[in-house]
């Protein structure tokens, strides 16, 4: 906040040439525009889900579909429990990512390494949860083109429900996977002192933007599929 307020007297200077008018590094600005385009992709997916749901008479009740968790005794159903664990895993890994970016700004290599490792663990934990859930649903007979669930009112349900679920959570899961790969590369580069040599940790910031975006998308996917 303080930087923007102090920047306003210099605003004319910002556009006077010789420096970035956005007061930001090129790669970071481009990462923002990439994420904006990705937001439109996810938005298109979620809005088409909404459109199809609005154009259908019945829809499965998410509390009856997503009610299992690992090692649950037979017959015990707990809607929302497993997905809330997944949500918190992603929020916490987002926090450790912020701490890694913060440590990078202070040129604190140890802090970056520690928090990047925690972020990677969080990402892998989330992916494991998602793999378990997909596997569980598959064994219940749910897959692309196959929907074993009934609508909430007991009428037959179309395969739209499972098609959208697997496509959108799959696309998000693929983003989480790419994020983990990017974070691992960032960790290796940090350990190799690449950023110490460059004199800045801006790459961690860019990886951080991507990782937060993955968390941001999950906020929407989680709410739309499991709560609404």
């Amino acid at each position, binding site marked *: 906040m303080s930087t923007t307020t102090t920047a306003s007297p210099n605003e004319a200077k910002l556009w006077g040439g010789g420096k970035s008018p956005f007061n930001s590094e090129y790669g970071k600005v481009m990462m923002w525009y990439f994420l*904006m385009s990705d937001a439109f992709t996810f938005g298109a997916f979620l*809005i088409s889900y909404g459109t199809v749901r609005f154009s259908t008479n019945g829809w499965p009740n998410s509390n009856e579909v997503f009610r299992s968790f690992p090692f649950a005794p037979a017959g015990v159903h707990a809607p929302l429990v497993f997905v809330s664990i997944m949500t918190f895993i992603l*929020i916490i890994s987002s926090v450790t990512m912020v701490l890694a970016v913060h440590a990078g700004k202070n040129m604190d290599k140890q802090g970056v390494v520690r928090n990047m490792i925690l972020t990677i663990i969080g990402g892998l934990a989330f992916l494991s949860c998602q793999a378990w859930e997909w596997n569980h649903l598959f064994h219940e007979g749910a897959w692309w083109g196959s929907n074993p669930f009934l609508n909430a009112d007991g009428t*037959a349900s179309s395969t739209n429900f499972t098609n959208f679920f697997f496509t959108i959570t799959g696309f998000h899961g693929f983003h989480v996977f790419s994020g983990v790969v990017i974070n691992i590369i960032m960790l290796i580069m940090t350990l190799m002192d690449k950023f110490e040599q460059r004199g800045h940790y801006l790459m961690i910031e860019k990886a951080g933007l991507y990782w937060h975006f993955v968390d*941001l998308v999950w906020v929407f996917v989680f*709410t739309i599929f*499991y709560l609404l």
Partner: protein
Amino acid sequence: MSHSHLDHEAHNAEAIAEIKKVTIILSVFTVIELILGFWMISMTSVGLKLAIKGTIVILMMAKAFYIVAYFMHLKHEVKNLIMTIIVPLLLFVWFIGAFLWDGNSFRNLRNDYDTYFKEQATIKVEKKEEDHEAVKHEATDAKHEDAEAKHETTDAKHDAKPAVEPYY
């Protein structure tokens, strides 16, 4: 020298305090969402359900704001940069409104003119175990015609556990 060092320290503490604050806000909002979700499970009133869903959407937008503004640091960027990102995203306002309206209108048209579509929404499907299993096997077979080994294992699993509850 020592002055700038102190400045740096103060700025550091401020940033950490902000991260803590946003973490707590995100967690609290998520917990509220989950409480509302649990509350909704046993609810029958359609109006109240709709109101809760609206509240959940508002909480979702608030969480998105905190992630973008503080974790992604957009609030601390130059105003022009913020505008080049936020203004195009305003298209979503039209995007969501228009498409949900269209979906709703399509449902109404089909209920008016497509009798089969309307009828399907009134026929309750048998929830009996046998029927359900049969339907599922059909679906699985159709899906994995070429993957023999795969649905053999699926069959074996279901045969071994005939006491699986109906999915509904």
